[in-house]
């Protein structure tokens, strides 16, 4: 059973505190693992490092198992089938960009985060990261305006093209830029299928079922089923830029409520995240 997070969410509610806590934990994990990356490490090893770090801190279930992408895999070059998302034996080299992506469930709360970095200096990825700031602002603004998700998606797309990049979240399943996350019931055994936790998939499926009846979708995609205003709840948003062999993304939770006040109607769950701090420092 999943508890649907609906309207009336306030920034200081216990519910959101739980989500914020697990999201912070995940970003801490990303930073810890990123600091330990060195030349020669494979994607599989990096993914295992994330898994172990989180397990040690009590994570037992996953929305999806941690991913790690190195080099041109950060831009999903030649990705055709979803199996290519899984970590490979690609080794990290100096200057290479990398992305760590994980979605742990902790205490019944889910996070889904993406962390971009590079081993040493990578000016291209730095540029991509800097340009992602505009997307974070655009998404929040247009969600507050209650524009249809599909339209926002197209605006994000257009901004990427204007910035000179390719939209890489098109390569995700259903081309999603975001998906809903919910509370997940803790089980003693957490099974997963193809890297996705069954409990979370169940939640997503039931959302899809409800949504289908009510005319909305838990997946934020470029397709017609996303042609509806933002549905209250928690959305893990992941704009992903690609520029030739380099990719960069962030992923974090956007809270959408049914409040009439624009400020309260949508807000980022947490503003104290590595990429946000980085933009603040650059200013």
């Amino acid at each position, binding site marked *: 059973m999943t508890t649907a997070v609906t309207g009336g969410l306030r920034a200081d509610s216990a519910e959101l505190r739980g989500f914020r806590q697990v999201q912070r934990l995940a970003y801490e994990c990303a930073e810890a693992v990123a600091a330990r990356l060195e030349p020669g490490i494979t994607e599989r090893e990096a993914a295992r490092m994330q898994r172990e770090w989180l397990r040690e801190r009590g994570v037992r279930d996953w929305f999806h198992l941690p991913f790690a992408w190195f080099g041109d895999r950060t831009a999903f070059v030649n990705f055709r089938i979803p199996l290519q998302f899984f970590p490979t034996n690609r080794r990290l080299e100096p200057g290479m960009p990398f992305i760590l992506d994980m979605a742990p469930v902790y205490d019944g709360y889910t996070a889904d985060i993406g962390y971009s970095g590079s081993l040493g200096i990578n*000016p291209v990825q730095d*540029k991509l990261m800097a340009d992602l700031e505009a997307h974070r602002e655009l998404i929040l603004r247009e969600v507050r305006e209650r524009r249809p998700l599909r339209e926002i998606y197209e605006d994000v797309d257009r901004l990427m*093209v204007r910035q*000179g990049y*390719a939209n890489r979240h098109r390569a995700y399943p259903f081309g999603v830029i975001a998906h809903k996350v919910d509370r997940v019931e803790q089980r003693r055994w957490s099974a997963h299928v193809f890297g996705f936790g069954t409990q979370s998939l169940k939640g997503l499926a039931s959302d899809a079922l409800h949504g289908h009846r009510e005319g909305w979708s838990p997946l934020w995609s470029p397709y017609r089923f996303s042609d509806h205003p933002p549905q209250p709840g928690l959305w893990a948003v992941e704009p992903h830029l690609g520029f*030739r062999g380099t990719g960069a993304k962030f992923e974090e939770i956007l809270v959408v409520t049914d409040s009439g006040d624009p400020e309260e109607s949508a807000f980022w769950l947490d503003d104290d995240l590595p990429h946000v701090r980085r933009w603040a420092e650059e200013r």
Partner: protein
Amino acid sequence: MTLENARERRVRTGGVELCVAELGDPGQPTVILVHGYPDSKEVWSEVAPRLADRFHVVLYDVRGHGRSTAPKPLRGGFTLEKLTDDFLAVADAVSPDRPVHLVGHDWGSVQSWEFATVKRTEGRIASFTSMSGPSLDHFGHWISNRIKRPTPRRVGQLLGQGAKSWYVYALHTPVLPELAWRGPLGKTWPRILERLEKIPGAGYPTSSLPTDAAHGAWLYRDNVRTRLRRPRTDAYAHAPVQLITPLGDAFLSERLYDELELWVPQLTRRTLAAKHWIPRSRPDQLVAWITEFVTSVEGGRPEGVTATGKYADRFGGQLVLVTGAGSGIGRATAYAFAEAGARVVAVDRDAEAASRTAEMSRLIGAPAAWAETVDVSDEQAMEKLAEKVATEYGVVDVLVNNAGIGLSGSFFDTTPEDWKKVLDVNLWGVIHGCRLFGKQMAERGQGGHIVNTASAAAYQPSKALPAYSTSKAAVLMLSECLRAELAGQGIGVTAICPGLVNTNITSTAHFAGVDAEEEKRRQKKSARLYGLRNYPPEKVADAILRAVVRGEAVVPVTPEARGAYLMSRFTPRALRRIARLEPPL
């Protein structure tokens, strides 16, 4: 003589007196230029003065050539050991305390390979730029490798180089070569050169040619057989080497250098679409590459982004101008050239988009990139741009006339204004580009390449695109005519016919004969259609670079463009039938 302001001196060594010329400030790094066969130091007369701004440039006549004296007797006087003595004597005379940068062409390169790989010159050579002259030792190993382990391909390479080396056998004939050079061949050589290599005479070759060529025959006789039979096994370069390979060289095959990495730990490869005598035909490019290489070895340049892209050997340091570089195919093309290390001028009428392209180009490998805002259909603006580019950045090596707009609608819906607009941009833009930048290229006389973006619509009629197709067909024909005209000057012209490519041309295209709302709808619909087709502009950019490297004439890119191209040649009636179909909009 053509080497103006050169300070001459004589250096005595091993029974001969070498004529040495110096240009530039002796305080700067020394670059020694070594000439080939049958030449004298004057073969460098276009290169040396251009290098003299930055370097201390030294040239010498190889023994028995130009104004240097010949050994007596000639036989045995031209061995690589003796040539190495000469080089060391010159180097000690002009740069006693500092290692020198070597540049060799043809036989000058062959002997410089000896200098750069023997023990006794270690520490005297800082870098070596080799063109059109392999190491005889490497060549010997190359041959024996192919004889020992013959595969069809390797035998083919052996036979190919064997055929190209006909003159080497000829020069081993006693007396006859000397007679020919002192007689008819010596007289007609300048004309032969001009015809075969398309290089202007201008004081080259010098009047000493017949004796130079006669003496130089001993270079071959004293060295080739012995070295090829028993090549040295320790011929490893002790300095960084830059290899410049002219692709149209009649005497040397590119394949000769396939295994060069084994011998040279620090190797930079460059290729050039030119024939054998590049010091005459491509001085600017050589000067740019030599300057860059020498400077990087001297450590005078901070380590920038290195070009890692495909064809970096070919486009590194070249100047490429792309119109319509603010989006789509133009932007992808600018990036592809940037990745190959070219300097990029990104031209677009959208200033912000152009500067974005330039900025990103610098991040991915372009040593420099500039943005220019111009509407290509504006004649005066284009003239101003051409002037500015020539004075500030130089003559363009590759010009990509890519800017274009879309226009759809039946013939009778297309107004005269529509026609004018589409022809102004799509056709006149290309005409202005070719006229202004192509002219600079032709006047410089050092080759280049023009790429015009036509379209599959150029040969595929359609009732929905009469004006657009007409403009593009004109671009195609213009390109082919210009290609014929510029062929003699080493300038290639390519027409690219992409087909359905996922760019924003669809969302900015004008749909004639419908109201604004319907136009919006059709733009959206066609954009979606192109998006579904999802052929990336990057692939078109790759095709453009490949076409420039190969010198292709007409390049349809997407499978449907290639299919239509085949149909237009073999089943034009079927294609005309298709033209009648209603487009799915």
